[in-house]
């Protein structure tokens, strides 16, 4: 499981690097995990995609599918780019050049779709008064944070890999990313990466920390089970066993405005 020695590693990491690239990500991940458990147990009533299609549908009609489908592709790209070491893809016979060509093209399409979609969703939220008034605190955190992460990510790619000379993040950022999850953190791997990549990584960490407290939780409720369940659902009035915890459930954490 040891990652390849990062070429840019410059000896032991400084205190600031440790804080930014080890402590901060772990704190964010801890908040992500504990936050989800807490919210799932305490706030089923607030756990929703919080649709606003009723109030505005013309922008949503295009913005939402663009954003969601773009996001799926972007997530897939990140999984390949971050989780799969370069040595594996080379072993599979994919040259570095071929990988980057595909990554830049597919990534650009996905990125543009996601940015366009998110732009439309943000625009309707800002411009449609009904929706702006219905925007709660968690949305006011989520939309800027998500936009910042996405814009930093696509700017980094554009600046370095589309128009720039090309930057091989698989040798630096990916190594740091895998180090987090293999519990062998390598802050020095990302410490030398370009600023845009670093900022993207940091906002992404924040986004993960904010995740359980926003409408993003609806991601975990993707209704795949619907494909297999019987159409008609019967339930007995007596079925849900008495849950003493259910007696005093707090209000939705994202419900306050």
């Amino acid at each position, binding site marked *: 499981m040891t990652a390849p020695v990062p070429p840019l590693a410059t000896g032991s990491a400084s205190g600031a690097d440790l804080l930014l690239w080890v402590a901060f990500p772990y704190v964010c991940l801890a908040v992500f995990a504990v936050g989800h458990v807490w919210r799932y147990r305490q706030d*089923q*009533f*607030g*756990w*929703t*995609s*919080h*649709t*606003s*299609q*009723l*109030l*505005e*549908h013309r922008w*949503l*009609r*295009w913005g*939402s*599918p663009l*954003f*969601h*489908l773009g996001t799926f592709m972007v997530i897939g790209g990140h999984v390949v780019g971050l989780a799969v070491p370069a040595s594996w893809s080379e072993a599979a016979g994919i040259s570095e050049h071929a990988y980057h060509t595909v990554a830049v093209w597919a990534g650009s399409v996905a990125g543009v779709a996601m940015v366009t979609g998110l732009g439309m969703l943000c625009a309707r939220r800002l411009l449609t*008064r*009904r929706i702006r*008034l*219905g925007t709660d605190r968690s949305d006011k955190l989520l939309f800027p944070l998500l936009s910042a992460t996405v814009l930093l990510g696509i700017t980094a790619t554009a600046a370095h890999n589309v128009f720039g000379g090309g930057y091989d993040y698989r040798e630096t950022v990916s190594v740091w990313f895998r180090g987090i999850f293999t519990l062998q953190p390598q802050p020095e791997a990302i410490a030398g990466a370009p600023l845009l990549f670093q900022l993207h990584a940091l906002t992404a960490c924040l986004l993960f920390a904010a995740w359980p407290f926003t*409408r993003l939780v*609806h991601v975990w*409720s993707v*209704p*795949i*089970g*619907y*494909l297999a*369940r019987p*159409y*008609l*659902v*019967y*339930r*007995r*009035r*007596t*079925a*849900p*066993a*008495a*849950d003493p915890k*259910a*007696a*005093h459930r707090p*209000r*939705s954490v994202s*419900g*306050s*405005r």
Partner: protein
Amino acid sequence: MRVMAQIAMVMNLDKCIGCHTCSVTCKQTWTNRTGVEYAWFNNVETKPGVGYPRRYEDQERWKGGWMLDKRGRLVLRSGGRVKRLLSLFANPDLPAIEDYYEPVTYDYDNLVSAPAGKDVPVARPRSVLTGRPTAITWGANWEDGLGGAPEHAGGDPNLTGEWAQKVKFAFEQTFLFHLPRLCEHCLNPACVSACPSGAMYKRVEDGIVLVDQDRCRGWRMCVTACPYKKVYINHATGKAEKCTFCFPRIEAGQPTVCSETCVGRLRYLGLLLYDADRVGEAAATPDEKDLLDAQRGVFLDPHDPEVIAAARESGIPEDWLAAARRSPVYDLVMRYKVALPLHPEYRTMPMVWYVPPLSPVLDAVDAAGGNQDDPDHVFAAVTRLRIPLEYLAELFTAKDTDVVAGVLMKLTALRSYMRERILGETGDETVLKAVGLTAQEAEDLHRLLAVAKYQDRYVVPAAHKEDAAALTAMENRCPVESSGDPTDAGGRRVLLGIPTLRRRAPEAADGGRP
């Protein structure tokens, strides 16, 4: 045979005066909260009219209910499971708020705080959604009493076909009746089948269709799937809400709020036993005109010893079986067959049925120069009613005018016979025979339709607490239970009927749990 019990409703449209008391009391009880200002679990429509939401009966547009595919299988009109999941990001068939109406409040404060002046201060309308002054251009009963009918009523989706060309909205020739609508608590609910999260369900004990607020994830497929558009999105909580058939009252053996407060006393509540195994087959009946009989075929006779035995086996308690035998709904739907379902062609097997309106029939006899006591004259008049048979058939029998005519003739015969009896004559039983009633049955039906008392109109058996351990859990979840009052030291005080808004600080102001 899998016997289930359903608490069902019948409304006698002849008696509906369109007072909206049911709608208002329902709103006060269930939807006077932020996020559902526009939602009316119960609303009263003027027919003909486009309805609420606008043209909801146009299933080509809104894709509600079920249909048969090319191979005759029952499928949701809004598409299969995969298509539904693909439209999670943007649902193309979801009514917008404009299709309902923009909810408003008024600047009441201006009435008392306006400075002294020459003019009387007014309370201007203000949009609840934007907080800005707005013009009221539509509402849930905009066309009440045919208001604006010449302009709008032609948009009624039921006015199709050649006969509809003859419908005039000129004052002298027009017709109108009121149609109170609430969730149909269908035997084959399309909303339940469309819910991706499995949050919607039909209760085994009483057939009430509910949304589990903890499991709803706001995918909004139920709104599209319901052909009656009786599931609403709470835009504050992002979850679906619908008519609950006032289940807390039903469980306590009381009628729903809309029934309890109906000034026309036109609503009937009672049990129907049905065979759950035959629902799917009945809903897939090939010919739409056979759907009414197919649905009647699913209902079981509570007097039949075989049915009683099977019901006992399914765990239906004895007092419920007794209530099913006294059910006024069973009498109107099955014994006298004067009640009809709303839009059976949607194939959801709705459980709120209607006795079609007859009102002007005796006028029509006179107008045609006939004798009100002559059954032939009376029956002939039924086909020349102001409310065209075709229109009623669109609503209640999937365009089968014979069935509607049959019901109207039965009601006419009953009226004619009882009129004679009450005027001290013997009554001509040939009229009754022609519609398949005996003198005794006529007396009973007359009693049920005209003079039934509270206990006869509402036969609602209370829920069984001894086998419902969760009812205590339910009580714990009661939204009005905790007073939030610090002096209320642990004691459970129930604050009924006090709006959340006034009861607590702004914290509780939006999105209470229904």
